[in-house]
């Protein structure tokens, strides 16, 4: 599914995720850690998403799970957008 939000998530993953595969090749529920994203890369993704979407993840979202798949990232961003 190509939407502006998904495109931006993929672009952040591509820039910060240090994945050995292209993020476009992943299913949206695929485990990004299993795909090769390290813990350090995940915090780079987190800061990259905050920059790209101009949001700040609240404390409860600073978990491994939130950054574990494209779908979970989108769900967190949607929740923030709904609350805004």
């Amino acid at each position, binding site marked *: 599914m190509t939407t502006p939000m998904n495109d931006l998530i993929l672009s952040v993953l591509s820039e910060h995720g240090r994945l050995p595969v292209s993020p476009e090749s992943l299913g949206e529920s695929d485990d990004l850690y299993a795909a090769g994203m390290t813990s350090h890369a995940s915090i780079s993704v987190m800061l990259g998403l905050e920059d790209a979407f101009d949001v700040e993840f609240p*404390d409860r979202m600073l978990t*491994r799970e939130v950054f574990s798949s494209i779908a979970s990232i989108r769900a967190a961003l949607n929740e923030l957008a709904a609350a805004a």
Partner: protein
Amino acid sequence: MASAMDVPQATGSQGEFRDKLVAEGLLIPSSVAGVTGQGPAFVDLRQRLDARISKLVADEGAVAMEFPPIEPRHDMESVGYLTSFPQLAGSVFAFHGEDAEALALGEQAHAHQDWSGHLQSAGIVMVPAACHPVYPALARQQVPPDGITIDTGPAWVFRHEPSDDPSRLVAFHMRELVRAGPADTVGAWRDAWRDRALQFLQSLGLPAVFDEANDPFFGRSGKVLARSQRAQKLKFEILVPVGGDHPTAVASFNAHGDHFASVFGLGPVHTACLGFGMERCVLALLFTHGTDVSQWPADVLAELS
């Protein structure tokens, strides 16, 4: 999370304990918090504890490797330490200038002004954990197929977290065992040592317990790392009361997955380590049994004889 500029204050009972240790010559304070010397009775206890740990680990068949308290800056950069713990890192800077600048530096230093602008990185950092120099050293040899254990001995390590708490030193001894081996074996190795170490510390009369733990990763993004570490049960600590509101970690047991192995090209192995904070173990003994060692329980003294 405290900012890097905060110097955590000791709790009342930590302060009392510190003052008692200083008054009795066990610890030797300096003008900087956390930069603390050790008097003869403290040194004696630390050395006896170290000898006892040598007996404890004798059947492990560990290979001894000792390193200075400094390591190549490049190695610290490679493992991501400055992403995880920029607030704890210590870096060595040195003077590379000419006569005129040396004179200016000397004058500023003599006046206790800021002379750091005259320095440049020496390419060296302070070792923050005794196991860190082991991984690049293992890359220079072949890790045997069934794995290898390294004993670092009581190595000096550095963490910039100045505090009045006598258990939180900027430089202290950490004795580590480091295991590199097949992925499906290092977890069990770590857990077995956690249980052995717990039993050992309890045999010294310490009210020791173990718990899941996380490292003090820096900042908001560090919360992701800390929670991730906990969720994956990568770190255990053995905790003993040492005067604070919460028990203090005196030993830790860490699984690294393939992190260090992939950074340094150790082959298809995982790594794990365990470390005893030597000063904290001694402080836990002094807090539990009192500062007059001659009055300690006979079985504890026998263990440390």
